[in-house]
């Protein structure tokens, strides 16, 4: 039971043992369980907010407002695949499982992405028919658990994403608590209904980059070299992981920073493992550039992308595209004030709800309860997501035009400076008002 706290004059809250810390210690003592939740890291981290664009002036030539053409398309998987993916916008929908999300939510993601000419991604547990039908471009995740892994679905996909890790939990597997293992989810995953399901943290039939190269070769053989092969890594030893992924033969690298979301993970994992998106992206670009593979192996960055400003800054640092998960769910209606009363019954409030693992989502998104799931109309949800993607795209174009770019991929690090020393060091751009990049000679 949570209580309101009144802060009276003279009361001083401890910075070390603040109210949240005290609550967590008390909760742990009462239950003997660590906290599991959804969402991503909630702590303050260096992020794209710490960068700003310089904009054109005397020495740069801007493009006219929303009128002059500023391209947004991007092609992924150009290195080896016979059929690369062409996206109309450089913003994709990240992998989220049917199981963690309702079938309606998965369909809505497909509808929204398709309306905007971009891709969505399956997740642990396999591909649903609704998702395939509603997604013009669908990336099929190939995960350690191989739940629902089916070669027929592999062939139906437009690209294959081998998942090594997730930004919210590098080195961790997944979990789907029993209350979300409905009969349909259980059947797709070949598990008894209602049990707490564990998703493996390492692949069952390969270990290390040399094996991964052979695994990629097998997947290419099975799909006759048609599909782009993505390799998704969590941001940790990013520089080396990116180089090894290239060596293994990836067409596309998906890099997920620690702000990336999850359906259910231990709080201690979410907040204390991995590195933020900002330094990870810079390290990845450095690794690709040193190999001479930047723009040849495409890079998708995810983890805390919220606005067109984030998209533009990620592209300026060298990413080919971004991927959104948490923001896409919010666009569908997650944490909507419309359901405030229901959130209150769960001991939370709109804007704070992160108990995706419980399956009681008032917005009907992270649930397998058919009554709750009905609250999300996939058509309406799809439309909301498309609107949001449209705004992200227009914002990105606005910033690109201000920097004089006729295509969003023409943005470059030179267009930005950092507001903090940390961000300057992590992003590898100068501290504003100086030409100083910490760590660079």
């Amino acid at each position, binding site marked *: 039971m949570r209580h309101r706290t009144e802060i009276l004059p003279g009361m001083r809250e401890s910075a070390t043992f603040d109210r949240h810390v005290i609550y967590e210690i008390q909760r742990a003592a009462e*239950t*003997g*369980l660590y906290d599991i939740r959804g969402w991503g890291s909630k702590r303050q981290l260096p992020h794209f907010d710490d960068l700003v664009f310089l904009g054109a002036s005397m020495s740069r030539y801007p493009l006219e407002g929303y009128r002059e053409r500023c391209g947004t398309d991007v092609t992924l998987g150009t290195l080896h695949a016979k059929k690369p993916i062409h996206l109309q916008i450089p913003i994709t929908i990240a992998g989220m499982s049917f199981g963690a999300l309702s079938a309606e939510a998965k369909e809505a993601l497909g509808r929204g992405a398709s309306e905007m000419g971009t891709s969505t991604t399956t997740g642990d547990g396999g591909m649903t028919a609704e998702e395939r039908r509603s997604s013009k471009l669908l990336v099929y995740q190939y995960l350690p*658990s*191989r739940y629902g*892994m*089916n*070669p*027929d679905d*592999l062939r139906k996909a437009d690209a294959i994403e081998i998942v090594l890790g997730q930004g919210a939990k590098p080195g961790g597997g997944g979990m789907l608590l*029993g209350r979300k293992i409905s009969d349909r989810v259980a059947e797709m*995953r*070949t*598990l*008894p209904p209602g*049990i*707490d399901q*564990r998703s*493996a943290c390492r692949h*069952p*039939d*390969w270990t290390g980059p040399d*094996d991964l190269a*052979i*695994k990629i*070769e*097998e997947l290419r*053989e*099975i*799909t*006759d*070299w048609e599909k782009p092969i993505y390799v998704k890594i969590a941001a940790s030893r990013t520089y080396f992981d990116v180089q090894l992924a290239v060596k293994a033969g990836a067409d596309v690298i998906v890099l997920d920073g620690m702000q990336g979301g999850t359906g259910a993970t231990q709080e201690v994992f979410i907040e204390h493992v991995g590195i933020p998106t900002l330094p990870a992206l810079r390290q990845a670009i450095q690794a690709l550039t040193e190999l001479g593979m930047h723009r040849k192996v495409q890079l998708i960055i995810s983890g805390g992308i919220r606005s067109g400003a984030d998209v533009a800054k990620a592209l300026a640092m060298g990413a080919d595209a971004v991927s959104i998960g948490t923001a896409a769910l919010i666009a569908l209606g997650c944490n909507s004030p419309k359901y405030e009363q229901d959130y209150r019954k769960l001991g939370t409030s709109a804007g704070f709800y992160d108990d995706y693992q419980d399956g009681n989502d008032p917005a009907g998104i992270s649930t397998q309860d058919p009554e709750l799931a009905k609250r999300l109309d996939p058509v309406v949800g799809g439309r909301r997501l498309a609107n949001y993607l449209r705004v992200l795209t227009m914002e990105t174009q606005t910033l690109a035009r201000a920097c004089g770019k006729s295509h969003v991929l023409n943005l470059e690090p030179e267009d930005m400076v950092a507001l903090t020393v940390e961000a300057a060091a992590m992003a590898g751009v100068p501290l504003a008002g100086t030409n100083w990049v910490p760590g660079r000679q």
Partner: protein
Amino acid sequence: MMFTQTVDLAKASVRSLNERLHALEPERDEEGWRVLNPKGAHAIACGLRVPVTVEIEGHAGYYCAGMNQKATVIVHGNVGTGVAENMMSGLVHVNGNASQSAGATGHGGLLIVEGDASARCGISMKGIDIVVKGSAGHMSAFMAQAGNLVICGDAGDALGDSIYEAQLFVRGTVSSLGTDCVEKEMRPEHYHILEPLLKRSGCAANPSEFRRYGSARKLYHFQIDHAASY
């Protein structure tokens, strides 16, 4: 078997072999393909989806017959990691030894290994039947979800660790059982599973010599009192 096609991998690539096998139409008489000089090449005959028979004359590398559907793949030699991984249906028969992760994540079909299978045999199996006539290495049937793993020889350490609903039958010794894996009673319904599997595999072993292992189901719901077991 009458071979209608012979592909010599000393002259042709694995890519061209697989491309031809993938192009086979499902509605036709069964064909027999013979593959010469595999020399440990990877991904031979993977992704097949029609009832064709492929015989490989020699050793194959990783992921031989991976994700097989309906086909029969016979290897006259040893195989590398992940033979018949994620098999959906059909038959894969190894007339030799298998490296690690044999039959990993397989959903269906039958994998027969005449010799020994290395570590992680049947890892995350999801319905496949596997018969190993020799012994199997450590961590076999790790997180095994469904299907049957028959080991006619001995099993290595941590057999069936974190197992779900797969059934394990071992004739020889078991070095150790993994977390939540226990020995269970052999009841008539289990002999009804084991006997036909042994027969289909051409194994003369007596079913009564086998012991059965499976999940204690104590880890199906996280309980703090079991924390020491994890």
